[in-house]
């Protein structure tokens, strides 16, 4: 895989850099890492981080230390669909433990693992700000709320049909 953003993405990155004062292009690091993760397979491999460093004229270590700090950046490959299920207090009160157990059993994986077909990754996360609509998970850009076992089944089916 060659590590190179499309022209369109490079223009977008140029626009992002202009949001900050001259010489403060490092401020674009978080947004550019989001773009890179979306573009290059859902995770940040070392060559990808090095590429981002070169785009922003910063040292690779400045990218690594940021990528390893924030929980949304994946430093290992992940499945095509990532179930990020909240397990913090308010979700726990509404049965998130059962939902996590159900997904584990249904996909036959543990938390942090990916199914052998590379389709699903299960991750537990801490409070995503959907406490009133618990239990919930993040799937890609959106939240799936008021989860039940039936809803989990439907989401898995939906993902499978999207993948085909």
């Amino acid at each position, binding site marked *: 895989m060659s590590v190179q953003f499309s022209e369109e993405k490079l223009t977008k990155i140029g626009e992002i850099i202009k*949001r*900050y*004062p001259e010489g*403060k292009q*490092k*401020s*674009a*690091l*978080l*947004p550019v*890492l*989001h773009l890179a993760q979306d573009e290059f397979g859902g995770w940040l491999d070392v060559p990808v981080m090095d590429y981002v460093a070169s785009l*922003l004229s*910063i040292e690779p270590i*400045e990218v690594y*230390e*940021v990528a390893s*700090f*924030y*929980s*949304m*950046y994946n430093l290992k490959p992940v499945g095509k669909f990532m179930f990020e299920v909240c*397990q*913090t*207090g*308010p979700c*726990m*009160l*509404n049965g998130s433990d059962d939902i996590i157990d159900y997904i584990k059993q249904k996909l036959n994986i543990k938390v942090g693992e990916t199914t052998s077909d590379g389709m699903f990754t299960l991750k537990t*996360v*801490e*409070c*995503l*700000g*959907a*406490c*009133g*609509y*618990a239990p919930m998970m*993040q799937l890609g*850009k*959106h*939240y799936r709320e008021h989860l039940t076992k039936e809803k989990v089944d439907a989401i898995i089916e939906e993902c499978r049909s999207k993948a085909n």
Partner: protein
Amino acid sequence: MSIKLLLDKANVPGIRGYEVYRREGGYRSVEKALKMQPADIVEEVKKSGLRGRGGAGFPTGMKWSFIAKPEGVPRHLVCNADESEPGTFKDRYLMEFIPHLLIEGMIVSSFALGSNTSYIYIRGEYAWITDILEEAIAEAKQNGWLGKNIQDSGFDCEIYVQRGAGAYICGEETALIESLEGKRGNPRIKPPFPAIQGVWARPTVVNNVETLAAVVPIMNIGAEEYAKIGVGKSTGTKLISACGNINKPGIYEIDMTISVEEFIYSDEYCGGIPNGKRLKACIPGGSSVPILPANLLFTTAKGEKRMMNYESLSDGGFATGTMMGSGGFIVLDEDQCVVRHTYTLARFYRHESCGQCSPCREGTGWMEKILKSIEEGKGKMSDIDLLWDIQRRIEGNTICPLGDAAAWPVAAAIRHFRDEFEWHVNNPELCLTENYGLRHYADELQVPVSA
């Protein structure tokens, strides 16, 4: 019916878009503000009594008045939309459904502070809300409310949205600033305060979403009218995000004159507890604030009815009171286990500690492990005192308030529910299949409680 200043138009169809928002009276506050002197707007906000809605409750006008104005150095307003405190999801609602209210409040505030480039730092997980905000900003710009020479006032202003990437700590203002600069979210030592040296060492004001939105009604109705709403130093309205074991979880705008009991049981608000269960405990201001058992929640130690405002919620200090915090209202019914709930919160804070200060980095992990073992029936009686000791050693010994935020829930759980912890230790097998239940936690207090 209580007064609504922020959500009064929330149910108007199409209010998310510019045209409907403007038709409903949107952007009037900008028209008014641009005809005023910036310093007069700061005075107006001071007079309104508005307090920061992110959790700390610091007077907003006073915060604004601290901003340094060195010659030739740009200043910045940064909106803190990193809402991450468990139980809190009010800013999300405002941004998702009435994005222009935040943009409007930010334009007025940017003008008052002299910020020509302002930023909204939003938590990374609110990815779709980033799109909503960017669309609202584009609409505002098309209609001459942002950009160069806004409404012929000579004032230029741009607003940009910056997405975080999953770190609770970035809700702390100096960590947020670090993150905005493209770094790890490690809080800075204060002083210097952001008002003197904030983002890129420039004077910076960081305000919560709801705080900036509240500037709009303050400008529209005037500080005096705004200050008449509420009680004492709790002026205006407050958004409460209610969750846990209640019939109607969601966002409620309150005017801070209703009682906690009414808030939980009235159909206008939470609508009571599902399945006729009884209330066991409540964390009224986001996971960091002390949990209170039902009896102390409704009545202060002095025997007064506890109200939903800053002063009444904190009445009695931490011995018998709690805090308004961020307004993340978490209700636990009689079937919930306080040990388990506290364990999930300890796990949260361990996960979110930035690792900079050792009391927090080591202490949060230690508390999580001990709570887990008590919860799993593997705890010793001495563990309870050890937990107490650890939280004491974290509190006040860290650069930022995350240490305190991690210590308080553990302290309050032991303070008020010690017998539940002891029951876990004494019943290592039973506690795996049964909960301690309600017991005496809702009983009327017979004698005034003291520390």
